[in-house]
C-alpha cells in the first residue's frame, strides 16, 4: 500500500490554477458538483514519488470570506475535509492582491505551500520577487512555477509531500499582526473560548476569534451548534468586543481588519518585490485599446458572436447530417433485422429516434462549448461582460448573462449550461428562467409552416415579431422576478479584467469535453425515458376500432390495379403504378391519423381541448403541442400525421390541410405565440433541473412559461377577435 495524501489547490480566478491542475492530473480527472451546489468539483488521482496523491481543485476565489458559493465551498473543504496540504497558486504578476487569500489561508492554520506562478510574465512587466524573503516572512515553502510550460510542478509536489510528512503544525508566529486594540480583542476572545470549552479544539482558536470579530455567520452557527449555552456566552462576549472596537475605530471591525490585512501585505510587498522603473510592456492593455474601444468594441463583439454562431450551426451542420444518416442507417438495419413486433416499434420509434434526436446535436454542442472555452481562457469573456453590462443591468442582470441568453436562439440546452459562468446563484437562476423565451432554432420550422400558410408574403415579418415578443417577455420577466422572487440587487459588478492569454489547446479540449459529457449523460437519460413515454402514449391502446377497414381497402385497391395493370401498355403501366401508390399511401396516412386520434395522446388532446379552445387551437393542434414537449420540431411532424398530410414531400400540402381545417390567421398567430412561450422541451427541462439543482425551479419554470403562453395566446386570440380580426 502506498501512503495516501490529499492536496487541495486554492487560488484567485485567473491565477493559472486550472492549468496547473490539468498539468498535474492530465486526463485522469473526475468532474462532478460539490454537494448541494452547482459549483464544479474537480479531482484527480496520481501516483508520484511513491505516494497516492488525490488532488482537489478548489473553486477560484479572491478571499475566504463566506459570501459567494465558491468561497463557502472552498473554505468548508479546508475546514472540514482537512486536506494534508493546501497549495496556494499565486499569480506573481499580481502579488499584492493574491497575498490577501494567502494570508487568510495562513490564518486558518492549515499546511500551505505557495506556488509563485507565471513569474516569467511578472518579469516582463518589470517585477522581481524575492521568493526566499517571502518564504521567510510568512514561514511558508515557496516554489516558482510556470503552469503553461509545466515548469516547477514536480518541485511543487515534492515540497507539498515533504510538508505533509513533516508532522509539525505550521508555526503561529508569522501571521498577520493587527493593531494593538484588535490584537487585544482577539487574544481576549481566544482565551475566553479556550476557557469555556474543553477537549481538543476543532479549529485554531485564534482564527475562530478573528472570524467571530468579523461577524462570520457560518462560524457563529457552528459555535451555537456545538454547545448552545457556551456558544451563547461566547457570542455575547464577541458582541461586547465588537461594539467596543466599533466605537474605537468608528467603523465596522471587519472593514478595519480587511484594511489592516492589506496594510500587513503592503509591508511584505515592500520587502520582497522590486518594480523596475523601466517602461512596462503591457500587451494586454494594447489589445484592449481595440477590443473595448468606444467605437469599434461593439462591432467586434458582434462579429465574434456572429462567428461563433456561424461555426456552430453551419460547420456543425455537416457532422449533424452524418450523424443523422448514421442514426437513420442504424434504424434501417434494426428495422430489417428485427421481426415486426411492438418491441421493434419501441426500439425504432422510441429509443433510436429519441436518443438519435439528442446525439445529432453533439457536434453543435462541442463546437459551441469550444468557442465558449476559447472566450473564457483568452480572457475575452470578461470583456464581453464589460461591454454588455449596461444593457443587461436594465433587466436586472449581470453582463455575463448576455452570452447564455444569446445562445438560447440556437439551442436552450447549451445556453442553460453556459449560465455556469455566472457567479451569483440568483443571477444564474434568473438567466435560466428567461433563456427559454429566446426562440430556439427547433421552433423555427413550426413558425415557417404556420406563418407560411396564413400570412403569405408577410410571413417573415410575423416570424420576426414572434422573436421580438420573446425578447420583450424575457425583459419583462427578468424585471418582474428581480423585484419579487429573486429579490435583491444583481451581483455587484466587481469583476477582474484579467490579462489576455494565449489559450492552451489541452485545457480548451478538457473544458469542452467536460461540459459535453455532462450534456450527453444527463440529457441522454431523461430524453430516453421521455421519448419512450411519448411513444407509448402515441401507439397505445393497440386494439383500436377503426372506422374503416383500412387493410381491406388497401387490398381492394391492390386487386383492382393488378387487373388493370395486366392489360395496360408500358406507358400506361407507369401512370397506373403511381396512381396506385398515391391511393395506398393516402389510406395509410388516414389510418395513422385515426390511430393517433384514438391513442392515449389523442384522447389526452381531446381531454385538454377545452383548455386550448379559448386560444383558437383545435384538439389536433393541442396534440401536436403536447408531443412538442419531446422536441419542438416534432410539433410539425405530428401536425403532418394528424392532418394525414405527407410532410416529407413538401410543406404546401400540410399548409393547405391546415387552412382547410378551419384554422385562421389569428388562431395560427395564437398557436405560434403559444409555441414560442410554452413549456421548454424535455432536454431543456433536464438542463434546468441540473443547473438549478432543484426540482422546484424546474417545475416553476414549466408552470410559469406555460401559464404565460396561455395568457398571451388568449389575449392575442380573444383580443384579435374583439377587434374584428379572424
Amino acid at each position: 500500500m502506498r501512503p495516501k495524501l490529499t492536496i487541495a489547490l486554492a487560488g484567485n480566478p485567473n491565477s493559472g490554477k486550472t492549468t496547473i491542475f490539468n498539468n498535474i492530473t492530465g486526463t485522469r480527472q473526475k468532474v462532478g458538483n460539490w454537494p448541494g451546489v452547482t459549483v464544479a468539483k474537480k479531482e484527480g488521482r496520481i501516483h508520484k514519488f511513491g505516494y497516492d496523491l488525490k488532488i482537489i481543485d478548489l473553486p477560484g476565489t479572491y478571499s475566504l470570506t463566506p459570501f459567494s458559493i465558491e468561497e463557502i465551498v472552498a473554505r468548508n473543504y479546508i475546514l472540514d475535509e482537512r486536506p494534508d496540504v493546501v497549495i496556494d497558486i499565486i499569480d506573481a504578476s499580481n502579488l499584492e492582491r493574491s497575498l490577501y487569500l494567502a494570508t487568510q489561508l495562513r490564518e486558518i492554520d492549515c499546511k500551505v505551500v505557495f506556488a509563485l506562478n507565471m513569474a516569467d510574465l511578472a518579469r516582463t512587466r518589470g517585477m522581481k520577487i524575492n521568493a526566499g524573503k517571502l518564504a521567510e516572512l510568512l514561514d511558508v515553502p515557496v516554489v516558482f512555477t510556470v503552469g503553461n510550460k509545466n515548469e516547477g510542478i514536480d518541485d511543487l509536489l515534492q515540497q507539498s509531500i515533504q510538508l505533509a510528512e513533516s508532522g509539525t503544525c505550521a508555526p503561529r508566529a508569522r501571521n498577520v499582526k493587527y493593531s494593538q486594540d484588535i490584537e487585544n480583542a482577539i487574544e481576549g476572545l481566544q482565551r475566553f473560548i479556550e476557557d469555556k470549552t474543553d477537549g481538543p479544539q476543532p479549529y485554531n482558536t485564534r482564527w475562530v476569534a478573528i472570524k467571530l470579530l468579523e461577524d462570520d455567520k457560518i462560524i457563529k452557527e457552528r459555535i451555537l451548534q456545538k454547545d448552545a449555552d457556551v456558544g451563547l456566552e461566547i457570542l455575547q462576549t464577541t458582541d461586547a468586543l465588537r461594539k467596543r472596537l466599533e466605537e474605537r475605530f468608528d467603523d465596522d471591525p471587519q472593514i478595519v481588519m480587511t484594511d489592516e490585512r492589506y496594510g500587513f501585505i503592503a509591508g511584505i510587498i515592500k520587502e520582497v518585490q522590486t518594480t523596475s522603473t523601466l517602461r512596462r510592456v503591457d500587451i494586454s492593455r494594447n489589445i484592449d485599446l481595440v477590443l473595448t474601444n468606444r467605437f469599434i468594441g461593439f462591432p467586434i463583439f458582434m462579429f465574434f458572436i456572429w462567428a461563433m454562431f456561424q461555426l456552430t450551426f453551419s460547420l456543425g451542420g455537416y457532422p449533424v447530417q452524418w450523424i443523422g444518416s448514421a442514426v437513420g442507417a442504424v434504424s434501417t438495419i434494426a428495422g430489417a433485422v428485427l421481426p415486426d413486433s411492438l418491441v421493434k416499434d419501441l426500439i425504432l420509434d422510441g429509443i433510436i429516434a429519441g436518443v438519435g434526436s439528442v446525439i445529432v446535436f453533439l457536434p453543435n454542442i462541442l463546437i459551441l462549448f469550444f468557442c465558449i472555452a476559447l472566450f473564457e481562457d483568452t480572457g475575452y469573456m470578461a470583456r464581453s461582460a464589460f461591454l454588455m453590462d449596461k444593457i443587461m443591468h436594465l433587466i436586472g442582470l449581470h453582463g455575463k448573462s448576455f452570452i447564455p441568453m444569446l445562445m438560447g436562439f440556437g439551442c436552450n440546452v447549451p445556453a442553460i449550461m453556459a449560465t455556469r459562468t455566472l457567479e451569483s446563484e440568483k443571477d444564474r437562476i434568473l438567466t435560466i428562467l428567461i433563456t427559454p423565451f429566446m426562440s430556439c432554432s427547433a421552433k423555427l420550422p413550426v413558425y415557417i409552416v404556420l406563418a407560411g400558410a396564413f400570412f403569405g408574403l408577410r410571413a417573415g415579418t410575423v416570424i420576426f415579431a414572434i422573436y421580438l415578443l420573446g425578447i420583450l417577455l424575457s425583459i419583462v420577466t427578468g424585471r418582474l422576478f428581480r423585484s419579487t422572487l429573486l429579490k435583491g440587487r444583481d451581483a455587484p459588478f466587481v469583476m477582474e479584467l484579467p490579462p489576455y492569454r494565449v489559450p492552451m489547446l489541452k485545457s480548451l479540449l478538457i473544458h469542452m469535453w467536460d461540459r459535453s459529457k455532462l450534456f450527453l449523460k444527463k440529457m441522454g437519460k431523461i430524453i430516453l425515458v421521455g421519448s419512450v413515454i411519448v411513444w407509448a402514449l402515441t401507439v397505445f391502446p393497440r386494439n383500436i376500432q377503426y372506422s374503416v377497414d383500412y387493410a381491406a381497402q388497401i387490398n381492394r385497391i391492390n386487386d383492382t390495379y393488378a387487373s388493370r395493370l395486366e392489360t395496360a401498355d408500358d406507358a400506361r403501366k407507369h401512370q397506373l403504378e403511381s396512381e396506385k401508390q398515391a391511393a395506398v399511401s393516402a389510406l395509410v396516412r388516414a389510418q395513422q391519423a385515426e390511430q393517433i386520434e384514438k391513442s392515449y395522446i389523442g384522447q389526452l388532446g381531446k381531454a385538454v381541448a377545452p383548455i386550448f379552445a379559448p386560444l383558437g387551437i383545435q384538439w389536433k393542434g393541442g396534440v401536436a403541442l403536447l408531443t412538442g414537449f419531446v422536441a419542438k420540431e416534432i410539433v410539425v411532424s405530428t401536425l403532418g400525421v394528424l392532418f394525414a398530410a405527407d410532410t416529407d414531400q413538401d410543406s404546401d400540402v400540410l399548409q393547405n390541410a391546415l387552412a382547410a381545417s378551419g384554422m385562421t390567421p389569428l388562431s395560427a398567430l395564437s398557436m405560434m405565440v403559444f409555441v414560442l412561450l410554452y413549456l421548454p422541451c424535455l432536454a431543456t427541462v433536464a438542463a434546468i433541473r441540473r443547473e438549478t439543482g432543484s426540482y422546484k425551479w424546474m417545475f416553476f419554470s414549466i408552470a410559469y412559461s406555460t401559464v404565460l403562453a396561455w395568457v398571451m395566446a388568449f389575449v392575442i386570440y380573444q383580443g384579435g377577435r374583439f377587434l374584428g380580426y379572424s
Partner: protein
Amino acid sequence: MFLSEMQAGQTGTVAHVGGNGILRRRILEMGIVKGSDITVEKYAPLKDPLELIVKGYHISLRVEEAARITVENVR
C-alpha cells in the same frame, strides 16, 4: 471627489469606501483600500461600467458602485 467623477486617464488615491456590507467588503477585498492609488483606465462604450487599475491589475466597477468611493489627490 468621487471615483465616478474621474476622467479616463486620471489617477487618484482612495480616501474612503462607502456602501453597504457585502459590496463594500468585496471592493475592499479586491484591494481598493484606503490609501491605494487608483487609475481610471476607460469607461465602457455605454459609459458604464468603468475599467480601473489598482495594485497593478485591471478591475471593472459600475458607475453607481464607483460613486461610493471617495478619492483625493486626483491628478
